[in-house]
């Protein structure tokens, strides 16, 4: 039976997406770092003794769960067969936003795309195309993302500035019309005040036959 300390470490390390420093675990559990090292060693041993398909290992100064090396053939199969071989439209959009707007937060990406981008950002990060490049200095200190040298390499670019410049956006007439309408504070010229009956001519709406949108 796992002890409370063991369980807490299992839970934290399981949900972390990077190795967790023993120092940090010690702080969270209110024990000494040496005690954390002991507990982690015990846990790693128990997984080995039970012959689990995963391990608890110490890498890059911290602890993480990973697949057992002898299960690599299955994991490789999973990577090759289980994942789609092309970037989804959502991933491509997210990549474009990060490339052009970096450094950029998840919230900003979501705002431009109009849908949540968390899963896509994680995927792009896993693929090594984007990386965390800093923290927003404002409240919340959101993580900021930017593109990686790997992406430049894949795109055959030297520097990110070599991305094609964004088109100077020239709105078409129907968009101008829509914008004009939504900006207008007082959409209709006020009708004559004491009119009980509607003028038949107004049935089509005020803009239908009004060529002069500029006033």
């Amino acid at each position, binding site marked *: 039976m796992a002890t409370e300390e063991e369980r807490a470490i299992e839970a934290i390390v399981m*949900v*972390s*997406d*990077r190795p967790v420093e023993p120092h940090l675990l010690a702080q969270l559990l209110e024990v000494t770092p040496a005690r954390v090292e002991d507990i982690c060693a015990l846990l790693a041993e128990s997984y080995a003794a039970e012959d689990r398909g995963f391990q608890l290992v110490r890498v890059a100064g911290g602890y*993480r*769960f*990973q*697949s057992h090396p002898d299960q*690599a053939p299955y*994991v*490789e199969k999973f*990577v*090759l067969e289980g*994942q789609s*071989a092309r*970037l989804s439209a959502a*991933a*491509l*959009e997210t*990549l*474009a*936003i990060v490339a*052009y707007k970096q450094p950029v937060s998840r919230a900003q990406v979501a705002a*431009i*795309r109009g849908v949540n981008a968390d899963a896509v950002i*994680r995927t792009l990060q*896993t*693929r*090594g*195309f984007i990386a965390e490049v800093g923290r927003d200095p404002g409240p919340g200190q959101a993580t900021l993302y930017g593109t990686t040298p790997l992406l430049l390499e*894949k*795109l055959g*670019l030297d520097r990110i500035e*070599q*991305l*094609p410049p*964004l*088109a100077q*956006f020239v709105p078409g007439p*129907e*968009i101008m019309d*829509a*914008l004009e*309408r*939504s900006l207008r504070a007082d*959409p*209709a010229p006020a*009708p004559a*005040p*004491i*009119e*009980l009956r*509607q*003028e038949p001519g*107004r*049935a*089509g*709406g*005020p*803009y239908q036959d009004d060529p002069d949108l500029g006033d």
Partner: protein
Amino acid sequence: MSGIRRPLVYNRPVPYTVSTPVFEGPFDLLLHLITRQQVDLWEVSLSAIVDGYVATLAEMQTALDLEVATEFLLIAAVLLELKARRLLPGREDVELEEELALWEERDLLLARLLECKTFKDAAATLHRTMESAGRSWPRTAGLEERFASLVPDVLAGVTAAQLGDVMNALLVPKPQARLLLDHVAPVRASVGDAVVELVDELPRAGRITFARLTSGLVERLEVIVRFLALLELYKQGAVDLQQAVTFGRLEVVWLGLPDDPGGTEEYDG
């Protein structure tokens, strides 16, 4: 009119913190009024309803947002409409139809209240489910780096130009759907005009019921304006109004025009 169940909580010191109710839409608020305060829509006075709103708004003022305030206005309008329907003088010839319409409206409102309550309770369960699921965090670490080289080259065929195109497409402003109401020309009726019309019509009629006087009118607003014009004339002593019983027939008797008709206001639709 029966006694009013005022929200007494506002009239005396509250011994403990009352959690601020947050209403999700007019049906929600109506539901609250009915279930918490036992308001009988048909018997309660409008001023009590308005008082209730004002008090609730005051209670919510720390967290008042526009949406909530708008919802309040909407439900107030719904209540006023229902109430006004009973107060407006009936037209005898269509009374049965109106009565049926009233029942229909009431049944509709009842159905919507039940639906509102159903989804309110469902939302509460959804919330609890989400809260309890939120006690667990998923593992999202993903692939270890040693497998990274195996990952199919998903960027194969993707060019910088393509990325630019995607970005350009994203930056095209999407026209916001907007409901334009300006083609609905507001019906405007002025009490002043109605007074002039009545002064022309009434001396010829002498004595006439209000139902008859308004039988040719299509818009509800026009009927109301005529009624206001009558009150104006009554105030000036030009007509006498007789009604035997509440909600009964309203009779108008022409008495003659005093010297000056006086100023009247204009009412907008």
